[in-house]
């Protein structure tokens, strides 16, 4: 793989600020994500991990800072403090480079597994049904659920639902995948199958940001582990360093609590 490719900047977030009413949830978050990076985001409940992820793909709007996706400006903040988003069409185009997997799966219950996968390619990209179905089948095979193609989501286990959700996100061919606690709604015995799927994507050099409470997973799969607390990034380092020698007292306290 050429080095120029691996160094390509996928996400540049600078000094992201976000308030809900008077509550300051993100207090200036900066993060760079390169192609092929797997960023694990860990931290206590309420520290702003989900909010940060949701700001990146415009599920939340920010109050300050800049976000660039693959070199294109999603939002920038002027010296005056005014936050300016790109025009709607541009925002939509930029955000389409990112897929997202939710804690609660959010599969479409009225559509079969196959229909869940092809809905967006057909409706958003205008792709031909016959053209997309073989690709969708390949994705289902990849997550090990081809035999469920005609099932409705309510018939699947939690782990199967989440793997369908991952396949659905991949069907739009995103460059970046965002995961918000993909295994937190699962029974413990079902987290493994989902984590295996994400690990497989990591091996294929998919660029990913994964908010997770699974410390072992963060440690083994991520290229960078980001520890967030109270709306700030306290420490962001390769997991081998962060887990073995946390520099900050807050990181140390959190890890001790988690392990």
């Amino acid at each position, binding site marked *: 793989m050429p080095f120029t490719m691996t160094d390509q900047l996928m996400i540049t977030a600078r000094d992201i600020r976000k308030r809900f009413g008077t509550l300051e949830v993100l207090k200036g978050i900066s993060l760079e994500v390169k192609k092929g990076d797997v960023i694990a985001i860990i931290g206590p409940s309420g520290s702003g991990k989900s909010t940060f992820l949701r700001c990146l*793909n415009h*599920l939340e709007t920010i109050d300050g800072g800049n976000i660039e996706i693959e070199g294109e400006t999603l939002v920038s903040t002027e010296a005056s403090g005014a936050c300016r988003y790109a025009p709607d069409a541009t925002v*939509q185009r930029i*955000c*389409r480079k*990112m*897929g*997202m997997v*939710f804690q*609660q799966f*959010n*599969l*479409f*219950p*009225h559509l079969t597994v196959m229909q869940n996968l092809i*809905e*967006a390619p057909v*409706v*958003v*990209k205008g792709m031909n049904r016959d053209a997309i179905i073989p690709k969708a089948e390949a994705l289902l095979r990849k997550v090990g659920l081809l035999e469920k193609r005609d099932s*409705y*989501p*309510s018939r699947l286990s939690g782990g199967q639902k989440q793997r369908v959700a991952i396949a*659905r*996100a991949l069907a*739009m061919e995103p460059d970046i995948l965002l995961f918000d606690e993909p295994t937190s709604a699962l029974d413990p015995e079902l987290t493994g199958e989902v984590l295996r799927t994400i690990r497989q994507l990591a091996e294929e050099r998919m660029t990913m940001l994964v908010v997770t409470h699974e410390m072992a997973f963060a440690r083994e799969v991520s290229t960078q582990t980001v520890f967030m607390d109270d709306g700030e990034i306290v420490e962001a380092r390769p997991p081998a360093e962060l887990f073995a020698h946390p520099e900050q007292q807050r990181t140390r306290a959190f890890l001790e609590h988690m392990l």
Partner: protein
Amino acid sequence: MMEYLLLILGPLLSGAVVTLKVFFITLVLALPLGLMLAMVRLSRYRAASGIANGYIWLMRGTPLMLQMLFIYFALPFVPVIGIRLPDFPAAIVAFVLNYAAYFAEIFRGGIQSIDRGQYEAAKVLGLTYGQTMRRIVLPQVVKRILPPISNETITLVKDTSLIYVLAMNDLLRTARGIVQRDFTTSPFLVAAVFYLVMTLVLTVVFQRMEKRYAVYDD
């Protein structure tokens, strides 16, 4: 007896046609209008939402009969918008305006019951708001609101008899005319059977639809 029934069946059937017309036209027009009202009611435009809210209150807060009388007798004298409608259009306008308000509340409840995660999933997949409503939200809403819509529709069958106040010869008024003329109550029985059959047909239709939607669980 049989001969007498056959004799009165002719006029009763033409009354039934009036009843059916009011029923179907109201249903076909009030459902989409109700959906639009619900969307306006739920929109972020405060003024529009407030107006829709007020409209629904007005229509549900006054008797349908009063609304019908107003549109037929009083509307012609209202300045600017005053128009004189013949009896059948006046009745239809009143029914549609009234039922749209009830349907709007049913749609609103249905739309609000859809999880926010559905909108977010659709958005991150690139669907526009319109696509999300059409392809993701409303199909799920239909499943959830079938029972209350079915209820309202059956009520409509019977409410059609209110058009007698505009002296229109629907099924019930025709039956009453014959009862008073011939001093026999059998026309009422015929009318009752007709309403029951229609309600039965609707019940079966809605049960079929509910069954079709039962292929998936929320």
